[in-house]
């Protein structure tokens, strides 16, 4: 039975989220950006499981399962898009795709 306070646990999840955000802001390679997004997904799911453990109910874990499903679908579609991008621009630079600028 762990007696770590809930605040520390949520803080831990938030730190993981921040690291993911940092990675998203800093990296220029598309693959790494997607990776950072995965980290953020994971930390969000962690918060749900923490909540479910706090109340002793299954709802948080169910939510985590759905998050997992969504993350999987998103990763597969994202990676397919990255393949298309690489095929078109011949580079993995995120700044290469700036046709939406003013």
């Amino acid at each position, binding site marked *: 039975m762990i007696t770590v306070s809930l605040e520390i646990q949520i803080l831990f999840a938030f730190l993981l989220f921040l690291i993911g*955000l940092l990675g998203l*802001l800093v990296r220029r390679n598309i693959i790494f*950006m997607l990776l950072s997004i995965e980290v953020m997904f994971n930390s969000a799911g962690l918060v749900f499981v923490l909540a479910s453990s706090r109340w002793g109910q299954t709802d948080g874990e169910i939510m985590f399962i759905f998050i997992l499903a969504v993350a999987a679908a998103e990763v597969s579609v994202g990676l397919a898009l990255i393949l298309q991008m690489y095929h078109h621009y011949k580079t993995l630079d*995120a*700044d290469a795709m700036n046709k939406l600028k*003013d």
Partner: protein
Amino acid sequence: MTVTIAFIPALPLFSFLVLSLFGKWLSHKAVAYIGVGSIAISALLTIIAGISFLSASPAQGFFHSTLWQWMNTDGLSVDIAFHLDALSLVFIFVITFVGFLIHVYSIEFIADDEGFTRFFSYMNLFVSSMLILVLADNLLLMYLGWEGVGLCSYLLIGFWYKDPANGYAARKAFIITRVGDTAMIIGLFLLFIQLGTLNTHELMQQVPLKWAEGSPMAVLIAALLLGGALGKSAQLPLQTWLPDAMAGPSPVSALIHAATMVTAGVYLIARTHVLFALAPVVQTAIAVIGALTLLISGFSALTQHDLKRILAYSTISQIGYMFLALGVGAWSAAVFHFMIHAFFKALLFLGAGVVIFVLHEEHDIFKMGGLRKKMPVVFYTFLIGSASLAALPLVTAGFYSKDQILWFAWSSNRGSVWLWLAGITGALLTSVYTFRMIFLTFYGEAKNEPHYKPGPLMLVPLVVLAVLSIVGGFIQLPENFGHIQLFSKLFESIFPETILSRGKSMELIFQLLSAVVSLGGVYIAYLLYYKKSPLAESFEHSAVHDFFYRGWGFDTLYDKVFVQPAVWLSEINKKDFIDSFYNGIAYFVLFYNRLFSSMQTGKIRWYVMAFSVGIIIILTIMFTL
């Protein structure tokens, strides 16, 4: 009869409308017929009206014709109404008849110009406005005509608008006369406030009832109206625009700046003479201004090189004589001189136009010469006109009109010996500069060959005007000569008799003096310019000559006192602080546009950064409030 008076100004106005609206689609021949024809019919109607007026003197001494009510607001009731009495009859006769001759002349003068239609439409508008001016029943309608002639003067001086110097001369004329017009309209305001009406006839009846002689309000209004007259008639101090107005075509100079528009001031003073009789100070001022102006412009005319500028200064000088006559109370003499002056001055300008045209636009008289044999008709008519201007005794009409003015300048109860001296000196100057012009232009060896023979359309008006310059004087001979008083009898009902205060028997001496002076002037000019005396050469290069040449420095004075400060003031606000306010709005909008559009970089990381910043802000607000 009363209805046809309205047609006299209406026909030229209608012709102006037709020419300006449809002139593009009319041939030159049609334009000439319409333009000249309307003036011809007006002249015909004038003659009919004149015959009817003279043969059966109407009751009260005038014809009256009300067309419709113009406005009736708050006590000001003004009609479009025409009032034809002897004064207006003389004026409309001169305007339509001389105008008709000048229009005929213009057909040939302006035949090759691309502004042919425009010229005739402006000239017709001018004649119409001038006729409205002199026929007007009330001062407001007269002011309408006043403004109309000012506008046409501007349009016609700047007729050849492609040369910016012409535009400058036109603007100068308009602005200087505007100063006078402003004084006049203030005078009209005061008259209305004081008397409640602007109808000339009623005014002239009520003015002596309301104010005693010398009352300050009468003096003020008279001075303001005088200001208006000074502007239009180019007298001191507003005389600087007329020499520059010679930039317009010669028919324009003949019609507007010799015969008609510049005499509008004379008409105004003559029309409202009752008011001026109540303000002796102002009347004396008129005489003094007239005397000074005729001297100043006489000296200036002596030194000019440009043929038309000599004639322009001469016009200023002769109108000075008319003002002198008005100032001493010789009303009919002033109007008589106006009529004769119109004839010979128009003749001189038309002749000058032919000379300049034939010599390839050469204006400098020192570059002309020997035209006597080459253009005989022009020479003889020009000679007759100059003789009338110089008032050569007995044969020319100018002698009779000018002599009358000089006699009244000495003998009238408002005249003085100084005024007479000024007048006689002016007559000497007139003689000298006129014949200087003749000797330099027509005698001597030819420096420039004429390239064109003027046709009948140009020559016939010259001949007609020359005849009038001689014969016109015989309708008013002085008392000791033949005592023909045809002219002054016309004005018995309008003007009071000029009161003589001294020397009734000395009239003969004065006439002899005038004759001697004018002949003497011819002789002096002959010595200096025909015999080419060295005095003339040394005079040309003296400092006095330069001073006279530049119009006694008035132009420079006005430039320094009025023009430079006005230009400096407008330069201060060149960037227009009100404009910069609106520019500032546009600038800020553009600035923020650039700022916000630079935020759309299209880079993903930039957008994620924007997200995070937004999240921070929202969370901060959520958790701290």
